[in-house]
Structures are given as C-alpha cells and as structure tokens.
C-alpha cells in the first residue's frame, strides 16, 4: 500500500472535524475561559483569574450539591450494577417466556426520562400515600418527595430507568461465555454462587468495567429526573451539580461562576472515569 492518503478520506472527516470544533470544542473552551472572568451572561466583564474557583470552595451551596451528587452516584451505581447483573443472570438462565421477559425488562430504556419521572412523581404524591393510609403504613402515607427522604424517590426512579441498558450490556456479556466452561466447572463440583464468583464474574469483568464507568459518568451529570421530580427541593436538598449549573447559570446571573463549577465537574468526571478504568482493568487482568 502506498503511504499517501487519498484526499477522499480527508473529505470524509474534515467537515465533521470543523463542525465539531465550532459547535462542541469551541463552546467548551469558551466555558473554560469564562470561568476565569466575572461575566453574568450579559453586559461587561473583567478577567478575575482563579477567583471563581477559590470562591467555589467556600460556597456551602456548591459543597452541598457535590456531596449530594456523590452520595447519589455511589448509591445509584451500586444498586444499578447489583440489580442489573442479577436480572441479566436471571434472563440468561433456563427460563420460560425468555423473549417476553427480556422485552419487558428492556422497556424502560425506550421511555423518556422526563415523562417517566413525571409518572412517578404523580404516583409518589397521589397514589402511594392513599394506599399507605389504607394499609396503615404511616412512613409512606406522605409524599416522599416532600420529605427529607426525597432523594430516595429520585434514586428509585433513576435506578428503575437505568437498569434496562445495563442489564442488556451484562446479558450480552453473559452470552459471550462459552457454555463448556460451565460444564467443566460443574464436573469439578462448582455450584451456585461459587460458580458466579469464580467463573461468571471474572468472565464478564470487561462488561462490569463499561457499566461502572457509564454509571459513574451518567449519575454525576444527573439532571432530568431531579428537575422533574423535586426541582432540587425540598429547599436545595436534592440539588445535583447539573441542576445547580442550569438554574444559577441561566437565571441566577452566575454565568461565569457556574462555568467554573462546570469545569470542576469536568475534571471530576474525567478523573473518576480514568480512575475506574485503570483500577477495574487491573482487576480484569488479574483473572486472565
């Protein structure tokens, strides 16, 4: 093959590279730049260096949002992965109605997260309290979204919706395992949970990595569900970083300040993703 690359290949990517730079990278760089100013989103501005960043560390609202988002991300990631792995194992077992069950468990994936959140919001506020009163369960007889436990409601809806996609990824991982491996294991006397721990899990480790990274990244940027279910409330107890950036950045005159917040979120996401990939891939290697 000649080393010269045909101009056709450049034709295929150059327009997209230019568009991607103009519409994605440029706003990204602008965001980073504005984070070093005091711009309100309109009017004159001045260069203020790292002032926004130092300010952020002293801002209790920001600290609260980060704490909540981290707590939420950890809980949601753990729950989603445990549940979706269990469901995937179930769907991969020798069961009746396999195709029907797979179709049902994948259904939440195709439904828009905003409308799903609204459906659950109505169920939490109008349906569950009525049932709980009738059944005499005082803990559930109030709308959970209006209480200190509002985040559990958000957690439930988020997990409900995220399960489907992660289940599909685990399921495709499980299907890539050669059934002979299981046969050999059962001859060696390996059964039940031991089989899962010693054979299934190591073999689907790469899928575990993908799911952990996708979950971590996705939940750190949680937006739709919070906006629809609680709008960050009651008070600001369920305000995620993404919601805070949106609300204060567009309506609070904090364009530059929230750009700094977004930049920090960017470093957190990058850091966490790289850490997860490094750490989990090392785990994968151990089994090879």
């Amino acid at each position, binding site marked *: 093959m000649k080393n010269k690359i045909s101009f056709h290949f450049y034709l*295929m990517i150059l327009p997209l590279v230019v568009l991607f730079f103009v519409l994605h990278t440029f706003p*990204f760089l602008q965001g980073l730049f504005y984070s070093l100013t005091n711009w309100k989103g309109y009017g004159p501005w001045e260069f203020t260096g790292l002032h926004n960043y130092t300010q952020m560390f002293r801002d209790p609202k920001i600290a609260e949002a980060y704490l909540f988002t981290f707590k939420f991300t950890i809980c949601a990631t753990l729950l989603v992965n445990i549940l979706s792995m269990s469901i995937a194992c179930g769907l991969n077992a020798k069961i009746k109605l396999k195709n029907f069950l797979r179709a049902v468990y994948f259904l939440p994936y195709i*439904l828009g997260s905003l409308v799903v959140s*609204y459906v659950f919001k109505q169920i939490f506020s109008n349906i569950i309290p*009525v049932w709980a009163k009738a059944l005499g369960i005082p803990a559930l007889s109030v709308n959970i979204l209006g209480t200190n436990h509002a985040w559990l409601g958000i957690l439930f809806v988020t997990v409900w919706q995220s399960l489907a996609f992660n289940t599909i990824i685990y399921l495709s991982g499980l299907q890539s395992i050669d059934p002979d491996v299981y046969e050999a294991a059962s001859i060696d006397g390996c059964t039940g949970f031991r089989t899962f721990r010693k054979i299934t899990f190591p073999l689907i480790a790469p899928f575990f990595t993908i799911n952990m990274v996708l979950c971590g990244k996705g939940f750190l940027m949680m937006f739709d569900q919070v906006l629809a279910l609680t709008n960050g409330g009651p008070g600001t107890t369920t305000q995620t970083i993404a919601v805070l950036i949106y609300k204060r950045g567009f309506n609070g005159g904090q364009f530059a300040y929230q750009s700094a917040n977004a930049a920090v979120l960017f470093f957190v996401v990058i850091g966490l993703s790289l850490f997860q990939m490094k750490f989990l891939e090392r785990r994968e290697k151990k089994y090879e």
Partner: protein
Amino acid sequence: MNNSTLSLRTQPKAVVNWPITILLLIGSSIFILGVLYITLVVALKDTTQMTRVLSLPKPLVLKNFAEAWKMTDYPRKFLNTLIITVICLPFTLITNSAAAYAITRNRDKSKFFNGVYYYFISALFIPFQVLMLPLVKQASFFHLDNILGITFLYIVFGLPMNTFLYCGYVRSLPKSIEEAALIEGLNPMQIFIRIVFPIMKPIHSTVAILSIMWTWNDFLMPLLLLTKADNQTLQLAQYVFQTQFSTNYNLAFASYILVLFPVVAVYIFFQRWIIAGVTSGAVKS
C-alpha cells in the same frame, strides 16, 4: 452466531428454572407492567373513580385524552419531534460512519487521523453542562435555536459515541475486498458508498436505535434551544405544561400516555430487532 450458541446451550439437560422464571415475572409485573398499567387506567378515569386506583375504569373517560391533545398542541409537538428524529437519522448514519471509516483505515499511517480519533473519543468524557452555557449563545449566533438547527447539533454531538461504535466495527472488517476494489479503479469514496456502508448494517442498526432514542427522548437540549412554542418537542411540552396538570392528575396521565404511546407501539413491533441492535453494539465495545 446466535443460533449456534442457543443450540449449544440447550444440549445439557434443559430443565426450566421455575423459581427464577417466577421471580422475574413477579418483578416485571409489579415494577414495569404495573407502573404502565396504573398510568393507563388513571388516564382513562375521572376523579370520582379514583378511590380504587387499580380497578378498571368504568365508565371509560376519553375526554382526558382529547383535552391533553388540545392543551399541549399535541400534533404540532409530535410533528416537531418526528422531524428532528427523521432528519437526524440518515445524516448521522452517513456522515458518522464515513468519518469512522476514514479514521480507522488511516490511523496507523497518519498522525492526523489518529489524532482525530482521540479528539472525538475524548469528548465522551466532557459533560454537556460544561459547554451548555456558551452553546446557547453560540446557537443563537448561528441561528441554530430552531428545529433544523437542533437536528444539526444532534448529528454533530453524536460523533464521540458513534465514532467509538463505528470504529470498533470497521476494525473487524477484512481489508481484502477494499484492496481489490482499489485495484479495480474505485476511489475510496466509491468504495465506502458501494461496499463498506452496506456491510456495516449491524452497527448501523445499533447507532440508529441509540440516535432515535436520544433525539426522541432528549429534554435538555430542547429546553435550552427551542424557546418558541411552535418549535417545542413532546418532552419539552410536558415540562412546559406541568404546572397546569397539577390540579388534575387524570389529565396529566393522559398526556403522559400520549407521549409514551408512540414509542411503546413501535417497540412492541420491533423489540427483538431493537434489543439485538443494542446488544451487538455493546458486545463490540
């Protein structure tokens, strides 16, 4: 491929695992089908029938749907969402697969193409929140804050994920056919259009499903860019009308059903194809 693994799997004594079957059935009927059932029956009732939520509606109240249809200007919003999804799809498939093809075939030879690969992939880790504030200014500067403009943004913003999926697939394609075609005198563009694009079908379907789901269900981008009522999508309309539903939740559920129904209807017909499409993308990655 699928058939052979299936037949292998049924070889050892095929005993149906009833406990797991029953557990999965109970789980799905309470948490998934149950939720949809509640949504549907509440939408078909009026407030006087709400003492027993789970009972079937009697009489059926269809005026909730008529009212939600009129109130949210449903046909207009449906059409907007459909236009965005339908225009976005072919352009995404063609442009993004061409880019991935060009990248994969030249990555080893050229620093530029290799650089573009990492440029696109690294954008996967950039949260949308970092650029959304400036993007709104940018979009209004280029007059992209309308239906066609947002379509354009979806095509470009899908690139990182799609490059990742397409490049993984192209790498697994044998080069020999392309080399033969090159000797026959076809140029790389013709090779891509006539040979490579058609054999990428499995990954096209993955990208197509992800793209359709994203553009149909997205809420944040329309919220930021489609401020005019005429431009709004189905999801955005739910957000805009939310406060007006608060007094009448039968009406609210009717409106939710109107938004969920088209997707569920399509899903019922194509579910096997949809699940297989998403799975093949997931396995590749």
